């Protein structure tokens, strides 16, 4: 029987890079979809508003695990074979998009109304208003909660091990199956997740403080 030593710890540590890659891809794709939904949610057209609100509500009210199962097992049964990494990225991106859309909608809404009115009176089109006036300000406001959500995203990548993708969590489980030293292994796995998430949490809190300070001036 193998025991838990340096080679195993190194294997787990290397798998952490896949967790980071998955987080990054899910975040980028999720941002694109989420950004579109955030703006749709604030559209003047009722149908778009309703559709975006429905999408956000549904995705936020089902477990990420079900999104993952539907995209992996479901689509493969329907004849669309997704490799684990794609299925994992796609489902996490869908999950992220709903939360990011809601965060950004809030940020856009918290830009004072006068900014919309002033820019409209300068004859800017809606897309110009977003591009030059609203989004730069909304971006600042959205930074702390977005970084905070990133922590949730990193943690939720841990469930993709169920479709066989070797991320940090899966690596820990594989080593555990070979060595049965669960306590040490999962302590290491937890420590690595903590090392990724804790700085992000602190950054989010720090940003919040900085922004609040500048707003009260």
């Amino acid at each position, binding site marked *: 029987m193998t025991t838990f030593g340096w080679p195993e710890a190194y294997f787990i540590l290397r798998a952490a890079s896949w967790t980071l890659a998955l987080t990054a891809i899910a975040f980028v794709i999720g941002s694109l979809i989420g950004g579109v939904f955030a703006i749709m949610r604030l559209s003047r057209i009722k149908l778009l508003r309703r559709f975006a609100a429905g999408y956000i509500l549904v995705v936020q*009210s089902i*477990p990420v695990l079900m999104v993952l*199962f539907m995209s992996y097992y479901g689509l493969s049964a329907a004849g669309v074979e997704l490799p684990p990494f794609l299925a994992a990225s796609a489902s996490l991106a869908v999950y992220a998009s709903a939360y990011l859309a809601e965060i950004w909608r809030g940020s856009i809404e918290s830009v004072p109304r006068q900014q919309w009115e002033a820019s409209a009176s300068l004859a800017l089109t809606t897309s110009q208003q977003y591009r030059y006036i609203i989004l730069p300000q909304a971006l600042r406001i959205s930074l702390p909660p977005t970084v905070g959500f990133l922590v949730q995203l990193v*943690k939720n990548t*841990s469930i993709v091990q169920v479709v066989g993708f070797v991320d940090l969590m899966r690596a820990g489980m594989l080593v*555990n199956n070979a060595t049965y030293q669960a306590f040490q292994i999962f302590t290491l796995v*937890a420590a690595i*997740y903590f090392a990724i998430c804790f700085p992000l949490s602190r950054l989010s809190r720090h940003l919040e403080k900085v922004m609040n300070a500048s707003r009260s001036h």
Partner: protein
Amino acid sequence: MLFQDVVSRWPMILNGVMLTIGLSFVAIGLGIVLATLMSAWRSLAGAWAGYIVDAYVELMRNTPFLVQLFMIFFGLPQIGIRMNGLEASLLAMTLNLAAYATEIIRAGVDSIHKSQVEAGLALALSRRQVFQYVILQPAFARVWPALSSQFVLMMLASSICSFVSVQELSGTAAIIEADTFRSFETYIVVTVVYLLLALTLKLFLNWLGHKIFPQVSGLARLDAKAEAA
């Protein structure tokens, strides 16, 4: 698509739903109690109590629920603490929820103005009474919406407990899928059930909030007014 294979197994699905609801409610109940105790300990004991509670909260909030569950289910037996999947799930959910709830309650406690505490002490209330009536109850009322959404998230996260072979809703889904080979149909049905569960829970918690904190709507309205001003 053939849904009847899946839908005809509705008694199994119902069992899964019951277990998901049961797990969530027990974890929510125990989690609130634990979070309240930790908040009280942080407020009433010395500074080092605060450090311990903070460390616990940060540790739980910055590691995945799945890792916590596996630590309890696979890791603890190695040091002689053995429990079955259901017990491990309950413990993991309670500990996880307690950490988030403690953080949320802290925000509520921080929102209570110092003058309130001073007024309470001036009325000769003991420190414990001040904590209970002047700090904790209004704090709870204020953060109830945030707590509610955390409870819904916990209910959704309970789907992860199927990884330690607990037959709650998503565990049931895995069995039905293996029985019928109708993966897509199974997961669509179960997802819809989760959706209904989450929406019902949201409504129920809203109603409960108005019931146990009659002043909550008044307070929330006051907060909104203060923000608008």
